[in-house]
């Protein structure tokens, strides 16, 4: 045992010294002439690994397709990536390595704000064009003009994020008069709650409960009961997966059936969650980014999801791929389309092109704003309908996650109150 450790140790030290040897995805291409190397850190372990692994799978599907088409700009595509372990402290080092040692042609972001932010200073230092995935307002501080974010939240999260939810609330049979807001202590949920607060106030709803909770909360019963006793008409919750399940459980146990329940919960978008909760999800109205409704059947998305689903089980990622994966794929399409237009790897020209052009991807057509966010935000609010069990097949078809907002993608009608039918 002992000697093994020492030998390993030597090997790793050697690994560090050689350094340049990349943990690349496609060793086959590593040999071929002058590939376009796309580098990124991704959460393959740690708290964000669920979405991180799904993202990586989407990238790999894109890279395989691109290479089958003969590559980008006639060069094969190679992904160079490292696991950031969901540890922000590792991110600056990884990006310096990508740019200075591996000398990748393009860098893209790790998954989500907390990991993107520490990569920004390093990327800015080298003036690289940077397409990020699901950041939340990172560029508000850095104001980097070569930053582009693949996220439907757009520029002004405060005013746009929860708008759809409250638009739907306005259509309740009895107009709502009060709202409750509960959000986990993290940046995305807090921004969501801020938006909910803004819209509640704007529409003259009385906010009867407004609190945060720490991610380590074990029992949500007292919290949900406190909300229940405040008798709100509309409940807006910003939560993350482990807590989302605790909150839904508590609400179901306490038979809490307000006219509208949901908001910005992260978790109900994911397959494992849908399998576990089954009918408890009925009539939940929740923020989402994609639903296989006819209104969102963009060209290519069905093909992509089919490919994704055949590989998902093997890769231990989300089985359905309804959340991040289409956007991760589209993120790569953005790069591909921009590279095709510019015709060479030129960071300044790429950034200029991204500012100027419209992109047509498997998640639809969009443009970037001056700050690099989606110019037109597209926060979906979907309602779970007709859920009888935890079987996942129905989530591949229309009619289960019905889109209520925005108006142009609407695919069904609001059902109220929250809770299982007949409760």
């Amino acid at each position, binding site marked *: 045992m002992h000697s093994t450790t020492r030998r390993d140790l030597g090997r790793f030290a050697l690994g560090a010294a050689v350094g340049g040897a990349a943990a690349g995805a496609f060793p086959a291409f590593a040999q071929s002439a002058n590939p376009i190397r796309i580098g990124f850190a991704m959460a393959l372990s740690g708290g964000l690994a669920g979405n991180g692994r799904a993202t990586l799978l989407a990238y790999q599907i894109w890279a395989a397709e691109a290479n089958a088409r003969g590559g980008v700009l006639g060069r094969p595509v190679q992904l160079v990536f490292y696991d950031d372990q969901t540890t922000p402290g590792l991110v600056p080092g990884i990006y310096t390595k990508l740019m200075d040692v591996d000398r990748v042609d393009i860098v893209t972001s790790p998954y989500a704000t907390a990991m993107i932010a520490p990569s920004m200073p390093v990327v800015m230092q080298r003036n690289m064009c940077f397409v990020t995935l699901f950041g939340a307002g990172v560029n508000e501080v850095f104001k980097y003009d070569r930053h582009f974010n693949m996220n439907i939240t757009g520029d002004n999260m405060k005013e746009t994020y929860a708008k759809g939810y409250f638009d739907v609330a306005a259509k309740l049979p009895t107009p709502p008069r009060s709202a409750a807001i509960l959000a986990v202590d993290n940046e995305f949920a807090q921004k969501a709650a801020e938006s909910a607060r803004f819209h509640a106030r704007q529409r003259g709803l009385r906010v009867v409960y407004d609190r945060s909770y720490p991610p380590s909360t074990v029992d949500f019963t007292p919290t949900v009961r406190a909300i229940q006793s405040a008798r709100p008409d509309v409940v807006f919750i910003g939560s993350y997966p482990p807590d989302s*399940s605790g909150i839904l459980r508590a609400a179901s146990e306490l038979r809490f059936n307000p006219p509208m329940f949901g908001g910005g919960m992260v978790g109900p978008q994911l397959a494992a969650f849908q399998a576990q909760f089954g009918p408890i999800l009925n009539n939940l109205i929740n923020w989402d980014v994609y639903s296989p409704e006819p209104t969102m059947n963009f060209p290519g998305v069905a093909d992509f999801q089919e490919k994704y689903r055949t590989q998902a089980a093997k890769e231990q990622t989300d089985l359905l791929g309804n959340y991040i994966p289409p956007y991760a794929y589209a993120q790569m399409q953005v790069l591909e389309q921009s590279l095709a237009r510019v015709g060479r790897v030129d960071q300044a020209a790429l950034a200029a092109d991204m500012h100027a052009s419209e992109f047509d991807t498997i998640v639809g057509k969009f443009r970037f704003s001056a700050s690099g966010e989606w110019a037109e935000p597209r926060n979906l609010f979907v309602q779970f309908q007709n859920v009888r069990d935890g079987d996942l097949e129905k989530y591949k078809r229309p009619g289960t996650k019905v889109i209520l907002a925005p108006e142009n993608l609407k695919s069904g009608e609001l059902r109220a109150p929250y809770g299982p039918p007949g409760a």
Partner: protein
Amino acid sequence: MDPDLQLLLNGVVSGLLLGGLYAFAASGLAMSFGMLDIVNIAHPALMIAGAFSVVVVGTALGLDPLLVAVLQAPLFYVLGIGIYSVYHHFFERRGEEALQGLAFFFGIMFIIEVGLVMAFGPEQRFLDPPYAFVTLRLGEIDVPLRMLVPMLLAAAVLGLLLLWLRSSFTGLAIGAVAQDAEALRLMAIDPVRIKRLAFGLSVALAALAGGALVVVQPVEPTSGQIFIGRVFAICIMGGMASLPGCIAAALLFGVVENVTATFAGPSWSPAVAFGWLLLMLAVRPQGLFGKAA
């Protein structure tokens, strides 16, 4: 009923139920840490390992999680004996338990956590028995079976344990080993054997608590981190070597946490609970129920 009173009452009841889970989780620690003086910080991680094993086995065989937890407890008992043997061989015997022994358990904790991530991925796992979705309603008070059933198991296990500790020869010897290992030697009992047995039991308790946790909520490989501070806090508040003290402290802890969450908002409940512990360490280190030194 006055709505505030109703909230308070429900907060207390749900706090007691939560406290029951804490008591289950902390009782094993009260044995290892309190009675045997083994600072097993891997205890919550072992509990999560037990929980994962319950999920895997229970899903594969279609069995109730609590049943699986009880059935697999002997395996964890054996695991505990193994861990103690290593600990004793390398640390206790050498008199290096303070620093190196602590680091050993720290490493074990880490190995279990990361091992679970590698084996099962970082996502949460669940195994819901049918009763997990049923709630009893007693007047104005809600009692979800999801919380109640594991607590009944906890009460049964802890009751038996307490009875055994107080009446059987070996149980009394475990109580004595904390006080005076020399006395045991005079009674011709090998303290190491007693400690090995007691540590095995503490790990089995951890795994049983893990089974209870599966019913209460989905588990992730890192779920143990939520419990580590709490179980140690409870152990200290309970006066270390006292199982009844530990149970009482756990119930109190659950109530304080949930009543704080109800009235002051959930974001303050950990700070209130742990601030309480810090204060306690400062003014009454022998614990709420411990005897004055």
